[in-house]
């Protein structure tokens, strides 16, 4: 079972994404901010990261920059942001993101992106 780490400080958002992903057969873990996400990424491997931008202590971009420096197998990450401008998207890619979604994300949109990133064929 593929493992996904949800990184967001809003419990509602984590729960919403968790419900969608678990129903689609993924194993999901959560982190409240970038530092906790790094701790979890160092402790066990994930196949994909779903990352909010604005979080306390370590934001999504900061998390990705640190993640990409770690000596662990590098897996894809999707930034999930409230900001829809091109600048924001470019900043996400420069920080090491592989995908960019704007909140709120519909269930089908989320699953399409996740499957794409994981190299799975969408049904």
């Amino acid at each position, binding site marked *: 079972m593929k493992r996904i780490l949800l990184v967001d400080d809003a*419990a509602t958002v984590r729960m919403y994404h968790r419900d969608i992903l678990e129903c689609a057969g993924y194993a999901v873990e959560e982190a409240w*901010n970038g530092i906790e996400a*790094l701790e979890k990424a160092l402790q066990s491997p994930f196949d994909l990261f779903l990352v909010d931008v604005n979080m306390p*202590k370590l934001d999504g971009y*900061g998390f990705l920059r640190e993640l990409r420096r770690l000596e662990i197998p590098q897996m894809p990450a999707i930034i999930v942001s409230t900001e829809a401008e091109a600048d924001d998207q470019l900043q996400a890619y420069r920080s090491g993101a592989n995908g960019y979604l704007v909140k709120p994300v519909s269930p089908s949109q989320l699953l399409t992106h996740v499957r794409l990133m994981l190299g799975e064929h969408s049904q």
Partner: protein
Amino acid sequence: MSASYQHSESVPEITDEDFLKFKEFFYRKTGINFELTKRYFVDKRLVERIKATNTENFRGYFALLRFQPSGEELQQLTNLMTVNETYFLREEYQFKCLVNSILPEIVQRKKGRDPIRIWCIPSSSGEEPYSVAMYLQETWPGIADWDVEIISSDIDTNILRRARAGRYSIRSVQHMPAVWLEKYFTGVKNEYQLCDDLRQAVEFTRVNLSEPADTLRYRNFDIIFCRNLLIYFDDLSRKTAAEAFYEVLNPGGYICLGHSESMSRISPLFKVCKFPEAIVYRKALEAR
């Protein structure tokens, strides 16, 4: 009136939704995530505090926890939800990490023969700094080549006096290997007295971590043990303490927190660092 009715009246109820609400709040504040299997443990303590604070029900108590300006009740509850006792070799995996992973790294980078400097805060009654000294003496080959300075601080001068005296209950030493116990302690009635050699190995000082003037003289440390202290601080005191640690540490220096603590709730100043034995935190090597 039936007995069961009386019972339900005297014990405040925690519903499933109440539990989830509390669980999320506590996780956000402390990083401690209670699984459903801990439900009984959590409920019992919540009920205890609801009674002690006369808040009558969960709703009233949660409002106190959430909005109290001093944050005192959250501190009280955190205390109850975490095991806060000190004894020799508590959280031993971190001492293993110190010897097997952290010290080799630090020694490799040290220029010249400056002593390796370790700060243990809070000192409490001394079990932790003495454990560090003993652990190094017994398990770290490098002790033959390097000078080590261990400084241990606390805000409470009474506890510092006890730490210097080095006298402990049987409970305090129960996790120590028998050979170490025999080597470093003598039995005095119902207690154990730590030997002078080890007592001399640690310098005890008084420090208030939230007061920048107090920490000004602490510089050039390689390792800080700060276990089970910051979790009880309010947000601003945590922030100030983390900034003090940043000044105290050499570039590349390490911080070890307690088992249930995470830097994710404290400060962005330090890097996460994974060793086989533990996750610790580090001031960046290039930091100035």
